[in-house]
């Protein structure tokens, strides 16, 4: 009886506390940490953004160990530099930018070289502007969901995204996986909106081709 009561009491206190922090906006959390040194506010920021920071770092570095280095670097930087965040920009955009910069810096320091496939002139049509007659043959769009969303297909697309050149990879990840707008992506990567659109366009064409080859060759 008594233990039951205490458990309930503890639950009430813990839930109340959690609700309070998870209800707070990003900016409120930032202020709590920078003005009052509230570490649980910082913890909440970590919880809220861990997957997005790590996922984006993994996309750029393409390696779990490297991604973890960047991930740690980002939050460590945050403990010191959170006060340089200005509320006129969106916190998530700012954090993505910190992550992008940390990832690129890390890659440079490791001298990891990049794939140099060029996508600048990547399109499926011929010089007359017609599709070459290979798309319909490989049409996989009416395959059952169980095939299309199989783990294997998801792995293939994930691997194919990692074959994209660095700048296309970053754009594609933010736009089509994390679901940000063209404006946000342009802002984070400090490129123009037309550049975002053009990279996203080529990246999607490349990935659609990759998937078609996969379904055509392996999953008849």
């Amino acid at each position, binding site marked *: 009886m008594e233990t039951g009561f205490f458990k309930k009491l503890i639950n009430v206190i813990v839930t109340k506390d959690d609700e309070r922090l998870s209800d707070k906006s990003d900016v409120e959390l930032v202020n709590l940490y920078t003005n009052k040194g509230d570490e649980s506010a910082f913890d909440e920021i970590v919880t809220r953004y861990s997957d997005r920071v790590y996922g984006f770092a993994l996309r750029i570095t393409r390696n779990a160990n490297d991604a973890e280095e960047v991930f740690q670097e980002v939050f460590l930087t945050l403990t010191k530099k959170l006060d340089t965040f200005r509320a006129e920009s969106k916190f998530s955009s700012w954090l993505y930018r910190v992550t992008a910069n940390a990832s690129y810096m890390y890659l440079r320091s490791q001298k990891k070289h990049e794939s140099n496939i060029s996508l600048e002139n990547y399109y499926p049509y011929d010089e007359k502007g017609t599709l070459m007659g290979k*798309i319909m043959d490989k049409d996989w769009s009416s395959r059952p969901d169980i095939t299309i969303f199989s783990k294997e297909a*998801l792995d293939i*697309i994930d691997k194919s995204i990692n074959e994209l050149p660095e700048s296309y990879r970053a754009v594609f990840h933010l736009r089509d996986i994390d679901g940000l707008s063209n404006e946000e992506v342009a802002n984070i990567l400090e490129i123009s909106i037309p550049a975002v659109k053009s990279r996203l366009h080529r990246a999607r064409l490349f990935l659609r081709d990759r998937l078609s080859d996969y379904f055509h060759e392996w999953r008849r």
Partner: protein
Amino acid sequence: MFMCKDVVENIMEYIDSELDLQTLKELEKHTGDCPECKAFVNTYKRMLEITGKLKDKPFVTPEVRNRLRVLLKSKIKPV
């Protein structure tokens, strides 16, 4: 004349419903007549559905999270 090329180059705006009415009509007329483009549009849409699923992939394992926690603890020492 509206070509396959025009379908390909307008596909993003088409998916996002950002085409002007004239272009939209021409695009849909072309894909109605051209099985290649019809297949292109359908597979393109399906591809976006697949990549959308990648969002649900969990990234940070409890181990990764824990190592971060330890690291932060060791670095933020009260002065």
